[in-house]
């Protein structure tokens, strides 16, 4: 116990201080602030997404204690978790719901960042790393969905990988590698499992670290209005004010997950049978519905291209523009800014309507 004049009551802290430069860290932490204002509510969604990711890692690791990832055993092991393992139903349903909430939250986060124009200099790389994180989360959703090996998942994966195969030139080889063969079979499952629990988590950790690092280095983006009206500037210290509020929100989110798990438990479905015909009305998960619906509306051919190829091309172009928005709207002209904002709103409305149509179709 090293007590000293500086730390009469905190021997542990003194021990650490003697060895590591935490003083600097403490200084930085004390000065970290978060803007307050009308848009401040949106600042929580990045943190909520991060929290949900922690939940996913935790419940995911727990599920791995019982999940058996091969075609003969996957379904039965998930049934075992849901029916026999104590609180297995809770862990599984929380995992399923948190996945949905996390993607929903990341979309809110991304769009709120967009409409606050926080992508502008100096935060271009934060924006790009965020897009990579979005893509990884969608990858998590797609790969995880197959793991229970039920009928819906099997056919949704078939349709989803079919769409990947439409990409010209590289699409088919990618589809072949993803599927582990020509068709979705028992060989597909181990690959998706490896992606879901190893590759994607590793990449996500790296890119999340980068994303958060950039934010710590540059501080949180402040509303544009403050540039013109500095007197409106009001901030809140991150520790402990914002942190406590965030913690509260995290706790409430956890409870929401528990309520969803109890009242809307994850379905087991019917075990996948590669030889049975596809049931009617196969749909992907809600976050892929807009793409799915969009492709359905394409005509059979557009010029020399297949309708689906054309649809994918449009989506890819749109995605590319979205990635490049920090360079399109640099904040130098009001006209460009307005166009970009209106386009963004249009895209949001478009995606929402397509998703809704996908549900009711």
């Amino acid at each position, binding site marked *: 116990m090293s007590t000293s004049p500086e730390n009469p009551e905190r021997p542990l802290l003194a021990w650490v201080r003697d060895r590591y430069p935490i003083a600097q860290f403490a200084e930085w932490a004390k000065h970290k602030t978060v803007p307050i204002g009308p848009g401040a509510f949106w600042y929580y969604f990045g943190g909520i997404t991060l929290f949900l990711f922690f939940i996913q890692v935790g419940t995911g690791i*727990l599920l791995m204690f019982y999940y058996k990832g091969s075609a003969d055993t996957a379904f039965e092991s998930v049934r075992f978790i849901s029916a026999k393992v104590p*609180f297995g139903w809770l862990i599984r349903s929380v995992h399923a719901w948190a996945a949905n909430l996390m993607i929903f939250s990341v979309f809110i986060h991304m769009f709120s960042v967009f409409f606050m124009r926080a992508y502008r200099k100096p935060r271009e790389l934060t924006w790009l790393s965020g897009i990579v994180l979005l893509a990884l989360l969608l990858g998590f959703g797609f790969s995880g969905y197959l793991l229970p090996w039920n009928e819906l998942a099997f056919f949704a994966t078939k349709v989803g990988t079919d769409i990947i195969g439409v990409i010209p030139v590289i699409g088919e080889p990618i589809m072949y590698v993803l599927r582990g063969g020509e068709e979705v079979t028992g060989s597909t499952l181990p690959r998706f499992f490896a992606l879901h629990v190893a590759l994607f988590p590793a990449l996500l950790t790296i890119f999340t670290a980068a994303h958060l690092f950039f934010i710590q280095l540059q501080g949180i983006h402040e509303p544009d209005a403050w540039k013109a009206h500095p007197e409106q500037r009001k901030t809140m210290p991150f520790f402990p004010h914002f942190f406590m509020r965030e913690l509260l929100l995290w706790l409430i989110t956890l409870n929401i997950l528990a309520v969803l798990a109890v009242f809307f438990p994850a379905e087991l479905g019917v075990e996948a049978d590669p030889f049975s015909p596809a049931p009617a009305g196969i749909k992907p998960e809600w976050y892929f519905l807009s793409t799915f619906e969009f492709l359905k509306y394409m005509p059979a051919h557009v010029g020399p291209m297949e309708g689906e190829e054309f649809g994918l091309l449009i989506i890819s172009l749109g995605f590319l523009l979205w990635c490049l928005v920090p360079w399109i709207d640099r904040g130098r002209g009001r006209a460009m800014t307005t166009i970009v904002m209106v386009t963004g709103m249009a895209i949001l409305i478009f995606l929402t309507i397509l998703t809704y149509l996908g549900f009711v179709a």
Partner: protein
Amino acid sequence: MKRLFDRRRVLNWFLGGSTFAWLGSVIYPLLRFLSPPPEQEAAISSVKAATLSGMAPNSGQIFKFGRKPALIVRRPDGEFVAFLAKCTHLDCVVQYRSDKERIWCACHDGFYDLNGTNVSGPPPRPLDALEVHVQGDDVYVTRKS
């Protein structure tokens, strides 16, 4: 000035106590989850169906393979064969007839030989075969690879 019931202490105790209680309500399910349940998963990839010492030659018994009924037969020559016990005619559960050295379905007198081939009566197809592995005294049955 430190009073026993000043607001700050009460608040901190309350906060600490409710955190502790709430954490307990989270950790308890996690700990229960980690401890494996007494009944193991219905093994469907490999099931211990019988023991060498427990089955005489020219006998058969029904066992559960996953959720399906299955039949293991020890042939007169001592070797084991195993099949899913669902008759291919109308899904009745078959049984071993040591008097005939055949597998028999009581519903409509269908017979299968010890290769599972349908040899007499209405069954249109052979029985679904399973693989048998003997390890020491234990006889394991797995899906056909």
